């Protein structure tokens, strides 16, 4: 199936076929990553600009390395002290960057909808690296790519997403992606972070850990950011840990060979016990490696590449 999109803004917009096109392309790039000279010329001469209005070393570096593996020139801009502080609009900022001959823009921004907004303004590919609590498409793609590697397919599988769903773009993108790929999703956490409203997206919502984990093939943990907007969403980190933290006892409620995922960075000892994060059923580091292949695929396809030609 060909890829006809200029941008990668949200998983909601994608069809299952398009997601699989990305996966097939990522399969090819993952083979490239295993080679001795792990580089392809696909984006040679292209200027990729990482435009980060929010701190995120992980995602920024992952996109940077993915672009470099495709032989692109990469410029990363930490916009925290730049345009917005000077009173410049986002439109002006991206139009200027475009005028400096950028060929692809990767944007991380705290405002939901911002990546889609600049994708409409610009004639070059825009990749969403997280727009507020809205979506984080490449994260969901790498998560599902990892599960697909383990299971062959997500069809009929049951996944629990546990933690701060309300403020999580990772959760939203994964809800879309996993359901489109045929998995059943259950959201778990306190009622203030996992509102019933989510049920209208076709998922199950539970505030009780044991029944929610009982028959799951995987559990995805989300970072609890008590210091941020959640200040009053639950009483304390200790309270959260005692009610919803994943420990060995609770992990035994899942299926025997269940997979543990986490988009990072992990609060060891809060959302998950340290031992569990490192156990053999944890795929946390594989997620990171797969993130490289998936982002290479996304950059490549949005630049006009085709899945078949990726293996070069």
């Amino acid at each position, binding site marked *: 199936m060909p890829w006809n999109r200029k941008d990668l803004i949200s998983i909601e917009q994608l069809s299952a076929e398009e997601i699989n096109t990305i996966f097939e392309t990522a399969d090819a790039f993952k083979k490239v990553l295993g080679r001795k000279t792990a580089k392809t010329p696909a984006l040679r001469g292209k200027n990729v600009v990482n435009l980060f209005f929010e701190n995120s070393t992980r995602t920024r570096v992952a996109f940077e390395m993915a672009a470099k593996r495709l032989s692109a020139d990469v410029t990363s801009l930490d916009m925290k002290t730049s345009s917005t502080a000077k009173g410049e609009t986002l439109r002006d900022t991206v139009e200027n960057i475009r005028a400096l001959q950028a060929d692809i823009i990767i944007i991380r921004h705290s405002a939901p909808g911002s990546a889609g*907004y600049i994708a409409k303004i610009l004639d070059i590919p825009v990749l969403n690296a997280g727009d507020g609590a809205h979506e984080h498409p490449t994260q969901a793609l790498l998560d599902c790519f990892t599960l697909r590697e383990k299971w062959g397919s997500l069809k009929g599988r049951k996944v629990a997403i546990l933690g701060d769903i309300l403020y999580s773009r990772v959760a939203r993108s994964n809800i879309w992606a996993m359901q489109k790929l045929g998995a059943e999703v259950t959201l778990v956490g306190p009622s203030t972070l996992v509102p019933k409203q989510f049920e*209208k997206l076709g998922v199950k919502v539970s505030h009780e850990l044991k029944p929610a984990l009982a028959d799951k093939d995987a559990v995805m943990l989300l970072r609890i950011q008590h210091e941020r907007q959640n200040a009053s969403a639950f009483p304390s980190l200790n309270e959260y840990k005692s009610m919803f933290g994943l420990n060995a006892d609770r992990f035994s409620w899942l299926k025997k060979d269940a997979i543990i995922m986490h988009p990072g960075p992990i609060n060891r000892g809060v959302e998950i016990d340290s031992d569990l994060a490192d156990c053999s059923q944890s795929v946390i580091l594989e997620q990171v490696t797969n993130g490289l292949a998936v982002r290479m695929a996304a950059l490549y396809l949005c630049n006009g590449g085709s899945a078949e030609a990726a293996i070069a």
Partner: protein
Amino acid sequence: MSAIWIKNGRIIDPKTERDELGDLFIVDGKIAEKPSQDILDTAETIDAEGLVVAPGLVDLHVHFRVPGQKHKETIQSGTAAAAAGGFTSVVCMPNTSPSVDNTGTVQLIKDIVDKEAVVNVFPTGTITMGRQGEALAPTGSLSRSGIVAITDGGKCVQNAGLMRRAVQYAHMFGIPVIDHCQDYQLSGDGVMNEGFVSTKLGLKGIHKGAEDIIVARDIVLSTHTKAHIHLQHISSKLAVEIIRRAKSRGINITAEATPHHIDLTDSEIESFNTNFKMNPPLREEEDRLALIEALEDGTIDCIATGHAPHTDYEKDVEFDYAPFGVIGLETALSVTLGQFYHSKRLSLAKALSFLTYKPSEILHLNKGTLGVGADGDVILFDPDETWTPKFRGFFSKSSNSPWLDRELKGKVKKTIVSGKLVFDGSEILANG
């Protein structure tokens, strides 16, 4: 003696329940009985064949941004937008810069109105100094200088004790208090309705309870003080129910709804289009239907636009950072006709009542009727003509309308203020 003879129109006066084909006469700026033949011989005649002849519309809630923000709107452009939309009287909010918390600013606005306005403009004063919600503005002096109500326009006094004193004090002067009902702890830094759509999009929500709680508070304060409180732009179903119960107990409150809250829901925000960002935000379908029902049974008294002009560059930003507010003067009649008349819910006269004598009576403006002796504020419109609002196609300086590029039905053909034609269907003609 000057006279206008409007011939062969469908004359509708919701207040006197007149709805008939016939003629309407305006003599020396007032609605008149059929005058003598020599006056008719020299009268200016207007052919209203196929058109509705109705009282000029009344809007209790507009923002004209003067003084202080002329780049968004002026008295001239705002009243031109009003005339083009069929409004002959508007009540302007005091959230200007400086705000209307002193008689000097009232006088300044009146002077500009005298020079620039083509329709009647009634200013309001603030409840508190600088709209800060901390100290009462001089309600008595403001009232003497000619304001028709006090309101913190766009802001809500959070301190219930202070609000109690404000309504008690204003009641002494017979001045109504107009409130933008919103508890700030509950609305937080939300940018749209809190509900399924905000959950899906990851945008921060404004909980309906923020409105419901202040509506209830104001009803309590009105109950104890007997003061008249007018509740602006009601948007939530529960607020409607609270108002309905209060009215059945005879509490001295009135309420308005906006065209956008009765026509649109928060599902529009799926596109992140900032022309759907307003405060209170667009709610859900059950709320929208509750507002329509509330207008029909009188729980909500009237429709007011909340006309809030912003420049395109202010709205052309991320949804989080766009200012709240949309314009409404030029589309209100069509939207109202669409929801109530073209939908066959109500008669044309009943639909027009929400925009004519009902709002007028709330603030005792003495407008909105075609009764003999009333001011000669009259509009002619074609209820069936379709048109499509376009960017930069408004008489308002701003284009932040949620109905851009959507076909509407009902078009104003002529607007007459005090017996003077100010809008002829395409152009603003005169300084009123």
